[in-house]
């Protein structure tokens, strides 16, 4: 009716906030790393890298156990978790996510069994019954989906910051998933002297993913305007800068660069560098998720952002 600044209703929030707490941040982190491990398992199989194949398969199994457990725990009625599997709903990212967890976990268990058989933990015969190629393919496909859908899930809401990030948050999720998966596998392999070549490749892929993450984050900052302020200012912004941008991206990238320049693949000095870089990347990945959740909830408190919602 006129151009005066929009009045508010006693500055009361317009939107309701999800009850999602640290458990959901943990799931976004663990689920992402799990999906990334599925992608790495496929790279390993394609290149015949047995070290990475072993670590990524066992890690996939462990994370595929942890992530549904965290998801079930965050529900208001945990005993009804299986209601997620009543229907398939293409319009609901959460429905597709629940199903892709199922279709990731089954091949992940089978491949881990086959790996255990090959490693002599289980009877050798078991490996013969596992269609490893098909399972790896499934794991890679649903793993890739899992790295991406959580970001879509957040953007497909009315929360101003998340909706504004529809081009950024899903890409951030994928990049961070790959970098944390590389970090986890590097941690699993770093004491194995024979895996030095694999460590090197993991570092390189992790650097690619981290730099991508940094680029998307910077673009989100410049593109988002006032809506993204809760993520980049205040306590959230400080933690994001400290733990994700500096600690989780810049320092590991420099450490990896240093190990390439001064270490050389087989030398012993590489291990502490990889160890530190991986730990920092994992911390940064978790903080990124936690801050996205916190900042989203904070942005829901501003009624002016919610009156005219990002189209």
């Amino acid at each position, binding site marked *: 009716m006129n151009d005066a600044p929009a009045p508010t209703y006693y500055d009361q929030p317009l939107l309701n906030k999800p009850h999602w707490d640290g458990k959901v941040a943990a799931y976004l982190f663990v689920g992402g790393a799990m999906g990334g491990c599925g992608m790495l398992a496929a790279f390993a199989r394609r290149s015949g890298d047995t070290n990475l194949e072993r670590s990524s398969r066992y890690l996939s199994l462990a994370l595929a156990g942890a992530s549904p457990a965290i998801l079930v725990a965050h529900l208001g009625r945990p005993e009804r978790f299986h209601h997620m599997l009543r229907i398939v709903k293409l319009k609901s990212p959460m429905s597709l996510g629940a199903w892709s967890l199922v279709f990731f976990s089954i091949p992940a268990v089978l491949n881990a069994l086959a790996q255990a058989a090959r490693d002599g933990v289980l009877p050798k015969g078991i490996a013969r019954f596992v269609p490893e190629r098909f399972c790896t393919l499934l794991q890679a496909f649903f793993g890739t989906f899992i790295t991406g859908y959580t*970001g*879509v899930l957040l953007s497909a809401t*009315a929360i101003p910051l998340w909706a504004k990030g529809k*081009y950024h948050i899903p890409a951030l999720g994928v990049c961070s998933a790959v970098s944390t998966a590389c970090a986890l596998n590097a941690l699993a392999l770093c004491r194995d002297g024979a895996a030095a070549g694999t460590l090197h490749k993991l570092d390189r892929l992790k650097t690619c993913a981290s730099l991508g993450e940094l680029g998307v984050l910077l673009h989100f900052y410049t593109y988002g305007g006032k809506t993204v302020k809760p993520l980049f200012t205040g306590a959230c912004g400080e933690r994001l800068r400290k733990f994700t941008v500096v600690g989780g991206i810049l320092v590991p990238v420099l450490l990896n660069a240093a190990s390439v320049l001064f270490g050389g693949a087989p030398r012993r000095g590489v291990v502490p560098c990889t160890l530190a870089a991986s730990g920092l990347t994992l911390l940064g990945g978790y903080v990124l998720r936690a801050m996205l959740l916190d900042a989203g909830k904070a942005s829901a408190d501003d009624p002016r952002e*919610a009156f005219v919602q*990002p189209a």
Partner: protein
Amino acid sequence: MAKGFFTDTTLCIGCKACEVACKQWNELPSDGFGFTGMSYDNTTHLSGTTWRHVAFVEQAQDDSRDAPPRWLMMSDVCKHCTHAGCLEACPTGAIVCNEFGNVYIQPDVCNGCGYCVPSCPFGVVDVIGALRENAHYNTATLQNERLQSRQTAVQNRGGVAGKCTLCYDRQRAGMVPACAQACPTDSIQFGDVEELREHARGRVEQLRRRGVSSSLYGVDWESSVGDLRAFFLLTDRPEVYNLPAKPVLPSTHQRAGYGSAALAAALLIIAGMAIFGTKV
């Protein structure tokens, strides 16, 4: 033949009978006794256990201290969107569109994932926190056998999403929803949505002739949430009543989201394949 509400805010006197009737019929627990100090509105917002909320807007006239303020009162409720964000988001299928064209949460199906909450562009639905059984209930009005029964426990003990059902149970019995029944001024009108819209347009015209400018909120909308089955007649901007001027159906963001994720994944897959290479 969708059924719905027409809330005519020009008739609301702020008695909150709708809030009370809703709480009582639906056996919803109280939200405590907080005083906001900002207005007569101590409810402040719709929630999982508050399905009607009367907003009180007090506007000073002409900057003059002597002129009486203008009062705007509005009984807010779930909008029962034709394209409902909560319904699209729900991964369990607990949220359905029922035979009356109303958005209904099946309380025995919902598992409390909470995804409908941020998916509502109007801030209506919420997950009911874990309530201690019987606590905050008005046991004088709550029928004892229903309190004991499993049905009530399932509906009210918390952990699931809650919002207006448009009195599904009363409608099935051919009755008018509790809030519309209790409203003493017919500010809340219940009926066939088409007929209500016709009536509402007539009311806008009638008010215009009397020199009152008003508009309908949620009718003939070019909005992604579609027309609302619970719509309103307002005499000021929607923001004044804490309603979004431009609500957006959240699922419209999905295409961009999946596209962005696919692009990032494709680039990283190419990088991974290049770095790890093929078997020699």
